[in-house]
């Protein structure tokens, strides 16, 4: 028997011991590194079915908030309100949805932004909405849909911000959270590169989420 074969045999015979030791070491490293462990040694989640159910719950939270504020026919109701009432209704929807989704929104800003529909401020935990579309008289169904889509688009950014910090707490798979975290660090504004803005993961996701919510109701 050659030296190599002897070594191989030795390793095979002590495989159980090696496996236990490696597992112990990994556990110690994980404990020592805390959250950093996930950054270095990444393993994907396996409970996708549960995570998908949580995503559905988030959509239902949005629909519940809309129903509570605007009733059964939200588009018609929003169109029939005065501009001041619309502003109030949207602020209420933001507050209720944030509460149901356990996300923190400290400020809701209504302003004249001209070139953008709204924004989410990460540092100020604020959602801003363009008031020009809100005060449109008469408000068309398309504008009503667009305004509500913007609300849920910006709320989704707030959710992404929370989820990429604590994916387990916010029931988001860690792979997606990791992609969002990287995207937040390298966020592309529409004015600098509109094509890459449109295609970046956090914008794609916020657009898809808002569409899923808004497509659930029609006047």
């Amino acid at each position, binding site marked *: 028997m050659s030296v190599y074969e002897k070594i191989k045999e030795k390793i095979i015979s002590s495989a159980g011991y090696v496996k236990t030791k490696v597992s112990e070491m990994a556990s110690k490293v994980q404990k020592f590194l805390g959250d950093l462990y996930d950054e270095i040694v990444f393993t994907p989640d396996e409970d996708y079915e549960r995570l998908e159910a949580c995503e559905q719950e988030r959509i239902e939270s949005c629909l519940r908030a809309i129903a509570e504020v605007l009733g059964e026919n939200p588009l018609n109701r929003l169109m029939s309100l005065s501009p001041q009432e619309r502003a109030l209704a949207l602020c209420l929807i933001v507050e209720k949805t944030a509460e149901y989704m356990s996300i923190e929104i400290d400020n809701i800003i209504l302003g004249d932004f*001209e*070139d*953008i*529909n*709204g*924004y*989410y*401020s*990460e*540092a*100020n935990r604020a959602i801003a909405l363009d008031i020009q579309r809100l005060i449109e008289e008469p408000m068309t169904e398309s504008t009503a849909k*667009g305004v509500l*889509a*913007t609300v849920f*688009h*910006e709320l989704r*950014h707030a959710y992404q911000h929370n989820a990429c910090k604590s994916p387990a707490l916010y029931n988001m798979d860690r792979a997606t959270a990791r992609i969002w975290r990287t995207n*937040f*660090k*390298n*966020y*592309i*504004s*529409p*004015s*600098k*590169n*509109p*094509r*890459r*803005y*449109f295609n970046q993961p*956090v*914008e794609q996701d*916020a*657009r898809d989420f808002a569409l899923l919510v808004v497509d659930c109701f029609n006047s």
Partner: protein
Amino acid sequence: MIDEKKLKSVLMKKHNYDRELALQTIEDIKALDEDILEAAQGFINTDEIKNITVEPCDVASLIEAYNMNPIGAYIFIDWLRKEPNKALQCLGLGFDEIKDIEDAEEEAQEEIGEE
């Protein structure tokens, strides 16, 4: 011929692009159609904006109505020519932004300092 080093410096120092986006945008500029590339290079060298129209948009109105950086407007016009449905969907939905991302801004400032 594009001077990539100069272009990167202009994008970062003059137009406030962070390093990563500057590098990505250089790749986008290199892939522009010839007429749009020529106009974009003209803007980079002389600050002169040559208007290019791809129906239903033109560079000047993108800068005016959407507050686009001229480089961004040239990229959009090229996108509109190559993928009209997607570009128009983007325009139709409108733009939003995520602001006050502290880490990213700090990193961008550090990069400019290193240049």
